[in-house]
Structure formats: C-alpha cells, structure tokens
C-alpha cells in the first residue's frame, strides 16, 4: 500500500475504475447469455443475479485499499472514544498525566519561543549586531568605543548604519513633578538602523550632521501617556531634560522596546540624538576615550561571519596605523555579536535547561501511560485474540490501538493547552521581571502547533508497547485460557519492568539536578553577604548633567558636597530613621546594570607602562560603612574631613588589597582612579569583602572613594530604621525637593528586596525544576506501584499456594518488596550515570556544590529507593492478606 492511497483523488480514480471493470463484467455475462439464446431481459436479470450485489462487491473490493481512509479514521476514533468511556478511571489518569506533561512543556516552550526563537521585533533583525570592543591581552571585554573608531566603522562599507548607544537616566522637568526617565543617547541614524517608524511625528534625520545634541527627542508611548496624558499636540513641545531644552519630534508606537541588555535599557523612554563629536563630550575625539558601545545594521547581502572577517582586516590595519593607541599587548579586537544574543544574555542556558527538564517530565509521563496501556492491553488480550480469530488483521488491530493511544494523548494535549490558557496570567507572573522579552510571551500558533505535535508523538510513543504485544499474540493459547482475562506473558512483564526502570532513571536525573540547584540556592542564600540588609531602604535621586558644563550646579565634588551634607542632615531627622548615608549608584548592593559605567580604570603608582586595571569604584559618604555594617580591617575609614581641600583618599576591600598588593601593606599606597586624573589617591584603609557586586562572586576588587572628594550624579540615599516605605519615600522626596525642587526622587526599594531579587532568575528555575522533579517522583512511584500491584494480582493464586504450603507472611512480604526494590535499584543505577552527565552540563548554574557531590547523589538515590519501597508496601500488604482458601478455590 503506498502513501498515494491517502490522497482522495487517487482513491476516487480507483473507485471509478473498479465500477467500469464490474460493468464490463456484467455486460459480457449478459452478451454470453444472449448468445446462448436467452431473451435480452432474462439475460440481464440472470447475469445480475449471478453477479450478486454490485454495490457490495464494490465495497468489499474497495475495503482492500481503504485502510487509511478518512471514514476508517473516524470510525477508529469513535471506537477509541467508546473504549475510553468504558474505562473512565484509566482514561482520567492517563489524560491528566499527559495534560500535565504537555501543558508544562507548552508553557516552557512559549517562553523559549518568545525569548530564544523569535527574531527581535525589527525588520531584517538578523542583520542587527552589537559591536563590542575587547582588550583580549588584558582580559577586558566590551570596553567601549571611541568616536574615531565609530567613524572608521561607519566608513568601513560593512554597515548600513552604526549607532553608539549610551544608557543613562535623566530628569524630565517642566512638568508638574520632576520625573526620572530612562534615556538612551543615540546617533541620529538609530531609528533608521532599527527600521522602526513612530506612531506620531517623525524620527531623526539619519544624515543629521550636528556634532552635539540636535535638541530633538523621540519619546516612548509609555512616557507620552504617563507624563503628557497622551497629548495629541505633543509634537513640537519643548521639555527640559536636566535643565536642557529639547523638542519632541516623535512618539514611538506602544510595545516598541530598545534592544538593550538590561531591563532598564529595554524600558528606555526618551531618545535624544547626539553627534558624538560636540559638547559636552568634546574630548571624545581621542581613540582612548570610550563610550559604552554601539549597535549596527550590517549591509544586506552580508552575513555576520563575512562582516566579522572584514572588520578583522580593518582592526589589523588600524592597529598598524595607531600603534600608540592600540599597543600589541592589549590585543584590541572588535566582536560583532548578533543583537538578539546580546538582548537574551545568559538566560539561554537556564531556559534550555528548563525545557530539557520539562521534556523529561513529559517523557516520564509517557512511560507511565505506556505502562497503563500495557496493563490494559494484557487485560484486553482475550478481546484482541477473539478479534484476530474472527479475521481482524493484526495491522488493523494495531491501527486501532494506536488510534486509541493517539486519541488519549490528543485529549491530554487539549486539556494541557486549556490549563495553560487558564493559568497563563499566573504563569507569566511567575517569570522573573528581569527576563528579556517578557512582554513577547504569548500562546502563539507555533506553541499550539508544538503542543499538537508533541501530543501526536507522545501518543505514538506510548502506543507502541501494546501494539507490539498484539503482533505477538498467541491466539490459540489465549483462547484456550478460559475465563482468565489476562494474558500477562513473560515478555510483557519484562517490558513493563523495563519501563519502570526507565521511569526511575529519568526521575533520578531530574531529582539530582533539582537537588543540586536547591543546594546551590541554599549555599547562595547562606553565603555571608558581608553587609547587613535588614531594615535598610534606598531611595534614588539624580543630579542634572547639563550639556553646557558652565550650567552644571554640581560640576565638582566641592559643588556637590553642600547638597550631600544638607540632604543627609535633613533625612536623618525623619521619624524612625536611625542612620543615613549617601552613595553613588554603584554603591547600591547587588543592583548593577551589566554595562556598569562606574568601573574605574585604575593606574598604580610606581608601575609605569602598566595598563589600567578595571576596578569597581563606588563613591560614598563615611557613614556608608557603618550603615551597611561593613567592618574595617586595617587603617581608617573615610572621614568627614576628607574633602576637596584635603588630599584624595580611598578605602579598598580585602580582595583589592590581596590582588594588587600581595604580601605588601596597602596602606599609604597611591593610585589614580582614572588614567588622566590630576592627582594621586592614597589608600587609607582596608574593609572586609562584601558581596555588593554579585551574589555569587565572593572576591571582587572594590575601591571606595569619598563623595566629598569625587562627584557622582546618580545618588542613592540609604536609610536604616523602622518606617513604612511609602511614607518615608514621600518624606524623603519633600526633603530632597526642598533642597532642589528640580530633582526627581524614585527607585525606592528595601535592601532586603534587592537582595532577594538578585536571586530571582535562580529562584525561578530552581522552583520550576523542583516542581518538575516532584512530579517526576510522583509519576515514578505511581508507575512502580502499578507494576507491583499488577504483579501481586497476577500471582494471587501462586501466593495462595505458597501460604497454604506453609510460607510465612513475612517471606511473601519480602518477596514482593524485593521485586520492587530490584526495579528501583536498577533505575537508580542507570539514573546515576545519566545524572553525572547532566550535572556536568549544568555546572555553570551551580554554586558552592560540586556537580558530582556524593552527598546529593547518595541522598537522592536513597530517597527515591525509599519512595519506591513505600509504593510497593501497599500491594505487598495486599499480598500477605491473601486468604489461601479463597485464592485456591477461585
């Protein structure tokens, strides 16, 4: 039978041909009869009678090739549904198991699809890249780009457009209340580069030659609604950003997001255009002066690989041309990273891991249903034998069984997707907000298609086991076994045991993965933070950064110091506040955008020719250490007397001391906090390490400078005490704005929240994996329970005989339990091997626990075995309660 016979027109032609053939047959019979002397009417009637029922003949003949027809399928499905209705318990369990597996798989897939699979929502997004400059020689990545380099790239012929991007936040004033907005400084070609149109007005002229800011801005739909009340006459309106005036020329459509790596950058609200050559950044004409980086659109027809090759050539020639700017030992290179990869960042691994885990759960579910079906198949052995004896072809019965299992899994799939639709809102809330492209998660057609495909596949998968059984059915034997409905052959029992072993192995893999993640999470939770987050709250503000330095009220630390002291004095008096401090944004623990602009390029005294080292440099007031509980180890802390009139001082942390002055006393050593700083900064103290940079990195070098000596525009106000967050935020806003009414106050958060949010993605994947692992455990124990109780019911007679012959009940109990134990141990053995492979693959997700942690492996395997024994205990008890008299009589 060929596949062609599925096609309706092929079948139609065949039917027509058969009708022709039969008609010719009749005509010939009739003609023969007439030739033999019958009257034409008699001949016709006799021939027809002799022929029999034409319709019936056709039907029988057609039956030969109609096996795959639509009618047959409908019939099979109807029979399958009837079968399931007759076994509601079995149907419910099976459908729910599959619904769980498919629903969960579809849920995770919808997240994977939105984040990893979909192209970014810009035309020809595959041509978009982010340009990252690396200094491989000194191990520095993504160090940023200079204006001359930007111009080189624009003229390289590789790119359609290249636009630097610099994320910052800004104060939007001239409204009823100063607002803090996310701001992305871009080149005028930015929107042309992305290929997006505004919903209102226009975007920048990509060829705008203005060297500085062209004083035009494009705003997001969000800020248009929030700050301007969706004013339809917004175009042309002049607003103040950091006291500079800009004219609104366009509003982006709702849903438009800047392709950024951090959540903040993705929620950019205002885009000013900047020529990257004028005020206030005039010094940026140097090749050594870097801004954060750029995105670019590769010319159409060019692949990223080809573009990278051509850029490598360009870089090599630039290095020859400017040897002073690009010393060979720095090994300056430019890397083109697909923009999507840049946006997704490091969640790819977590997501794929989750998808793998949920796939395992689905697989375990399938194995479980296969086991159920197998049990049922042996219960239906007699039915199958009778049907075969009556002429049902094995292929026909196989098809019927497969249809049954596919119908089952389709029902499961529908239920799973239905659950997904109902639970969607709740599920999305479960996803951490920092996940990129969160707003793009939908239950799309492709998610439904995948769910459908999985259902089909799963149905075929777990339907296979019982069909193999049908093919090997020994009809005579089964029909002879009168009365006993079951046909459990040795081979079938083996298949079932094999399935349970597989189930256990898979569950063990999942459980070990989950336990390792749980332990990592536990280790991280309990790793000493090095600071005390309790009862600490942060509120942010930001000092303006006018384009004309002469207008800057807070240009130097000296200008800023009075403001800092005044704010500090005022917030300290607020009710409930015990202690207060101020610091730059990088002094806020665990709250760092990845493109940290506060990384210092430090130069050490007496190490001439050394390249600058990259060190984190928060700027804080002296109270900061006391407020966060970071202890002093050597020397002294910063003091109020360290101001712009006194020599520059800094406090470093232990790791910084160990890294840069090993076996030396760092106190009194001098360094510069940027390569061109006019004067040296002296190290006056060493404090203990605190995990303020990243939760999972213990030793990160940090140098703390004084806010009275070094200005910072992004400020965090730290408060320790007992107060309600909402009230205190309002009070702080009043106090800050009574010092300077143009300053926004925003970003209030307790340090406890920040600390727990720093583990959000980890918590999310750990919780999901734990959930999956528990599901797997449940399914596996149901599986072993099913197999053992089936075994007990099969052997009731035998057990009765044993008991009658004097076997002790404990012996029977031991026999049943050891059967279960053997399966569990075999599963655990296979699973341990698999878990070793998986745990090594996930080693980058682990913290403080080895991928081969013997304790985890041992405890999980033991737990799983214990659960297996518990699951076997119920049928074992049933076995010892067998009454020999009853068992032997019936």
């Amino acid at each position, binding site marked *: 039978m060929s596949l062609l016979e599925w096609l309706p027109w092929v079948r139609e032609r065949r039917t027509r041909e058969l009708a022709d053939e039969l008609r010719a*047959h009749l005509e010939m019979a009739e003609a023969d009869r007439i030739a033999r002397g019958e009257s034409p009417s008699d001949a016709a009637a006799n021939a027809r009678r002799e022929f029999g029922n034409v319709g019936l003949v056709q039907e029988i003949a057609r039956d030969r090739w109609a096996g795959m027809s639509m009618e047959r399928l409908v019939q099979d499905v109807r029979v399958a549904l009837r079968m399931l209705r007759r076994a509601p318990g079995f149907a419910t369990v099976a459908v729910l198991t599959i619904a769980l597996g498919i629903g969960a798989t579809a849920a995770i897939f919808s997240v994977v699809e939105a984040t990893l699979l979909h192209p970014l929502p810009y035309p020809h997004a595959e041509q978009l890249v982010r340009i990252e400059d690396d200094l491989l020689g000194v191990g520095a990545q993504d160090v940023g780009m200079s204006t001359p380099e930007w111009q080189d790239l624009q003229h390289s012929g590789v790119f359609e457009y290249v636009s630097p991007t610099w994320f910052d936040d800004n104060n939007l004033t001239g409204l009823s209340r100063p607002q803090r907005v996310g701001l992305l400084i871009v080149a005028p070609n930015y929107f042309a580069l992305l290929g997006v149109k505004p919903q209102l007005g226009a975007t920048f002229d990509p060829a705008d030659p203005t060297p500085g800011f062209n004083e035009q801005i494009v705003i997001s739909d969000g800020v248009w609604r929030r700050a301007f009340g969706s004013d339809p006459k917004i175009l042309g309106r002049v607003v103040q950003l950091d006291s500079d005036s800009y004219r609104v020329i366009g509003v982006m459509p709702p849903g438009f997001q800047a392709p950024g790596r951090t959540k903040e950058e993705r929620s950019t609200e205002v885009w000013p255009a900047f020529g990257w050559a004028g005020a206030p950044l005039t010094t940026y004409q140097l090749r050594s002066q870097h801004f954060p980086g750029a995105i670019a659109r590769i010319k159409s027809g060019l692949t990223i690989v080809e573009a990278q090759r051509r850029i490598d050539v360009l870089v090599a020639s630039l290095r020859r041309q400017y040897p002073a700017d690009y010393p060979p030992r720095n090994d300056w290179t430019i890397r083109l990273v697909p923009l999507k990869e840049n946006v997704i960042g490091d969640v790819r691994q977590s997501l794929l891991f989750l998808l793998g885990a949920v796939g395992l759960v689905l697989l375990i579910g399938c194995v479980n249903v296969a086991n159920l079906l197998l049990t049922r198949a042996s219960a239906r052995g007699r039915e199958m034998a009778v049907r075969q004896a009556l002429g049902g072809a094995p292929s026909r019965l196989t098809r019927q069984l497969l249809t049954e299992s596919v119908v089952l899994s389709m029902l499961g799939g529908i239920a799973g997707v239905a659950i997904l639709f109902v639970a969607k809102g709740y599920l999305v809330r479960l996803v951490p907000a920092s996940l990129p492209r969160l707003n793009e998660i939908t239950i799309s057609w492709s998610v439904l298609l995948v769910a459908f495909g999985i259902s089909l596949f799963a149905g075929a998968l777990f339907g296979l086991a019982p069909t193999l059984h049908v093919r090997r059915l020994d009809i005579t034997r089964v029909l002879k076994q009168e009365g006993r409905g079951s046909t459990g052959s040795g081979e079938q029992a083996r298949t079932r045991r094999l399935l349970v072993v597989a189930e256990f192995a898979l569950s063990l893999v999942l459980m070990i993965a989950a336990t390792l993640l749980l332990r990592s999470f536990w280790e991280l939770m309990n790793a000493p933070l090095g600071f005390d987050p309790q009862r600490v709250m942060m509120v942010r503000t930001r000092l303006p950064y006018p384009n004309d330095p002469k207008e800057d009220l807070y240009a130097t630390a000296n200008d800023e110091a009075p403001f800092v002291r005044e704010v500090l004095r005022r917030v300290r008096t607020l009710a409930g506040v015990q202690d207060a401090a101020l610091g730059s944004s990088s002094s806020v623990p665990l709250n760092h955008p990845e493109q940290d602009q506060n990384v210092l390029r430090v130069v050490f005294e007496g190490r001439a020719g050394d390249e600058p080292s990259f060190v984190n440099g928060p700027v804080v007031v002296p109270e900061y250490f006391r407020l966060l509980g970071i202890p002093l180890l050597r020397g002294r802390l910063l003091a109020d007397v360290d101001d712009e009139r006194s020599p520059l001082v800094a406090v470093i942390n232990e790791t910084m001391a160990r890294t840069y002055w090993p076996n030396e006393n760092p106190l009194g050593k001098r360094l510069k906090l940027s390569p061109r700083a006019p004067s040296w900064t002296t190290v006056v103290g060493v404090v203990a390490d605190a995990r303020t940079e990243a939760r999972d990195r213990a030793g990160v070098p940090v140098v703390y400078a004084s806010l009275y000596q070094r200005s910072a525009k992004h400020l965090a106000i730290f408060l320790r005490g007992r107060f309600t967050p909402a009230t205190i935020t309002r009070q702080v806003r009043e106090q800050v704005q009574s010092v300077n009414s143009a300053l926004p106050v925003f970003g209030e958060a307790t340090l406890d929240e920040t600390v727990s949010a720093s583990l959000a993605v980890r918590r999310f994947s750990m919780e999901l994996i734990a959930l999956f692992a528990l599901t797997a455990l449940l399914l596996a124990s149901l599986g072993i329970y099913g197999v053992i109780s089936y075994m007990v019911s099969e052997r009731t007679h035998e057990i009765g005989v044993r008991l009658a012959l004097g076997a002790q009940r404990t012996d029977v109990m031991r026999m049943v339990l050891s059967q279960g134990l053997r399966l569990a141990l075999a599963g655990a053995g296979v699973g341990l091997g698999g878990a070793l492979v998986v745990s090594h693959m996930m080693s980058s997700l682990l913290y403080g626990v080895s991928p081969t942690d013997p304790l985890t492996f041992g405890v999980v395997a033991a737990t799983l075995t214990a659960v297996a024994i518990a699951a076997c205990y119920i049928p074992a008890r049933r076995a010892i309660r067998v009454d020999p008299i009853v068992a032997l009589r019936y």
Partner: protein
Amino acid sequence: MPRKDPPTSRIELLQGTLDFIILQTLRWGPCHGYGIVQLIRAQSRETLQVETGSLYPALQRLVRQGAIAAEWGVSDSDRRVRTYRLTPKGRTRLAAERSKWEQLSDAIAGLMQPPGVAET
C-alpha cells in the same frame, strides 16, 4: 426459474485456494475478470463457481502483492476491460503453491484408496 447448476455440484473454496486458482488460470495468458470466472468454470467442469464478491477483492489483493499486474485494454468484443497477467513474482509463487497442492492432493488421493490395494 431453476438454477442451471445445482448447488450440490459446487465446492466451497478453501481459504487461500482462490489465489492459487486465479494464478493458475492466468498461466495461459492475460485475462479479464469475467474471463477468469468463465475459465475456472470451464476447466473445473462446472464444479468451481467463483463468486464475483470474492474474485475482485482477490484480484486487488494479488495486484497489491505484486503477483499479478493489471492494465486496461480492449476485449475481443471491443469492450474496454481491465486485464490481468502473471508477473515473474506471481510465476514463482505459483510454482511453489503448485508443488504444495500436488503433495496435498496426492496425500488425499492416497487416503481415498482403500487400504491394502496396491497402486498400479
């Protein structure tokens, strides 16, 4: 109207025999369905009557198994008919089944002989 051939003179075909008989009939050359019925009847001296309801499914089955091939042609009486012919595969199968049948009919013939009567 009385039947031409009384039912008693007909033998129910054993399952599996029909395929063999069709193949055997087609050994003499390609033939259409009606012709096959007539030939079987004539050659079995009116003993074997093939039902059309069995014949056509059997033909379909044999075509699918590749033992015979079908093609449309024109009959002696200028009718468009589908004729069937043996394929090499069918020929091989026929040979195998023939020897099986010969053994069987020999065996049955032996059983029919009264015991003790020697074969001549």
